[in-house]
């Protein structure tokens, strides 16, 4: 894989939008990987937390937005609680989710959910799920 770095990509409005929404400074991340190490779901992520931060640092927003990672983050805050730089990747994932939901594409069709589940599952799961996956 080869990438050609361009100033436009590195300083694209999308990047600053992500920083704005998440209130995280992407440049603070020095890629120690603690987040990926502690993340309960990084095993299933196409782009694990620390790499997500890196991708954004080098302006590859498209790849990050295409990956499943943001939909897997449950916001357990383990990344933040152990990050030596005090970054919260969870916030960044939230920003990514909002960006893609704002495009009107939901990550979960409500009608696709089984009635049986909706009956049995704790409301908090359903409410929270809708808020994370539905625009």
């Amino acid at each position: 894989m080869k990438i050609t770095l361009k100033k436009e990509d590195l300083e694209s409005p999308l990047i600053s939008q992500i920083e704005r929404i998440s209130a995280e400074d992407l440049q603070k991340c020095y890629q120690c990987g603690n987040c990926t190490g502690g993340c309960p779901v990084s095993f299933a992520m196409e782009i694990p937390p620390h790499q997500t931060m890196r991708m954004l640092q080098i302006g590859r927003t498209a790849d990050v937005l295409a990956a499943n990672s943001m939909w897997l983050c449950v916001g357990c805050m383990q990344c933040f609680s152990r990050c030596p730089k005090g970054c919260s990747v969870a916030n960044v994932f939230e920003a990514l989710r909002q960006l893609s939901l704002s495009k009107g594409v939901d990550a979960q069709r409500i009608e696709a959910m089984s009635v049986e589940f909706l009956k049995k599952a704790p409301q908090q799961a359903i409410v929270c799920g809708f808020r994370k996956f539905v625009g």
Partner: protein
Amino acid sequence: MPRIGVFVCQCGNNIAATVDTKKVAEEMAQLPAVVHVTDYKFMCSSPGQDMLKKAIKEHRLDSVIVSACSPHMHEKTFRKASEAAGINPFKCEITNIREQCSWVHHDRTKKTGTRKSIDLTRMTIERLKRNKPLSTIKIPVKKKALVIGGGIAGIQAALDIADGGREVILVEKEPSIGGNMARLSETFPTMDCSQCILTPKMVEAELNERITLHTYSEVESVDGYIGNFTVKIRKKARYVIEELCTGCGECIEKCPFSAQSSFEMGLSKRKVIYTPFPQSVPNIPVIDAPNCTKIQKDKCGVCAIVCGPKCIDFKQEDRFVTEEVGAIIVATGYELMPNERFGEYGYGRIRDVISGMQFERLASSSGPTGGEIRRPSDGKAPESVVFIQCVGSRDEKKGVAYCSKVCCMYTAKHTMLYRHKVKHGKAYVFYMDIRSGGKRYEEFVRRAIEHDGAMYLRGRVSRVYERNGKVVVQGADTLSASQVEIEADMVVLATAIVARQGADTLAQRLGIGYDKYKFYNEYHPKLRPVETVTAGIFLAGACIGPADIPDSVAQGSAAASKALGLLSADELQREPVVAKVNEATCNACWDCLTACPYSAIERHGLKNRKGTVVRMVAMVNEGVCQGCGVCVAACRSKSIDLNGYTDEQVFAAINAF
């Protein structure tokens, strides 16, 4: 009427290009008291200086002005020349018409530059008229040095000063000198055993007749100033009379009680009367009072019974000795950040998670396991060991922002030692960056990886926990962008290096500066790396910031040479720019005392003939005064003035403006 000579320098074209030096000279000639003027191509050249000297003699000048470059350049030169020609150096003043005139005003018509030069020179003349002849202050020097801290840096400094022919007092707070280096097994990158290279130096320090050791002692107070420090040292109660003890070790042998060994970092126990380690210097035991049943509840006392020379004294109390020294070297070293701060790594809870320093003890042939790598929980040789770097270092949230500098190297060393001792063992290292700047350092790390098969993983560890007898390490390898889990037998934490507890208190006693991490401040980080802003006090080793052995030794020697330079003179000369008190008008409000940054001002009693004190006034200690003049501006009754910058001089300059 003073007889002033004015010399205007053209500095080749540097000044002449934008200043009409001739006109400046002529203008000055008009002023009263100016009896000789001239301008010349290069005043600082030897012909220029000769011209100055000649003029002084010919025209019987009593003071001279050189309008040339910045006084920071050539003030000394011209004052020397004037002195040579027989006038007081402080009757020679410089006007800066280059840096602050010809070079910054590019008006080629020379109008601007010339007018400004005239103004500036005129102001200097008015000032100069009020200059008093001053003579440099001479301070006697106590030809003795104090070294605080008996680690490798302190030992090196003490030895060098002693070799330089001066007396040294070496103060160490532990019962033995040697410091942290005495704990290390092998040292990178040469892999020679730490004890083997350290102990000879320790013994040398003990035997050297110019070195006085005060172990188990601490600096209580420091008074005085460069060349003349008075230091009070607390010799903590050892309960063993040093003068009598032969170091036979019988008492240690027979002592029935034991306690955790702080030297072995809690990996093993030692007797309650003990020497920290076999090669301790001096080889005189100490009684660990809190754990001694005799001292606590007057039971036992075996040591006293078996002691041949009868040197055990349970009633012993702290003693104080006072030393007079001319220079002080601070080499108090470092300690390690408490690992308990990082709950996710389980230190103190999971027995097989140990610190790097503990690993040094395990690997050391004089350590608790005789140099065999065995894990604390079950004493088995670990099949796999995970080394975690940057524990607390480069961690703004829970630790410190800086890099501890030596961990990359000693971790590489640890992996080698481990591999050499446990042939089939596998070492894993979690690192963020490998910082191996230093002679043969990078090669050393590569050897650990390529030759001794250490598995380096670029990433931090998030969590360590136990799972059926194993220690599970959960981290990341950022290079493969994956989460990593290792079932290890032992985990070693490369903990951050931090300043010693109480480093700030000592700094306050000494009057030296320290940063927010309590590491001591150099006078200048690049150009004056072992000096402090307080004249006569020098620094060496890790008390300045994380340092490895070569650094510490180099700094020890550097500080020693600085101290020797100071102690080689019989008396110190310093610029007479110091405050002086007018005792007649001083009304003892002591504002100056509180204002002075150097506590150079003392309360002084004026006595009558009978010798009884009739009035208190402020008195400036010329040795301590640095000549900032804060007291002068603070004085309400205008009773203090600053030599070289008297109110009279400054007002004269302003008036001439």
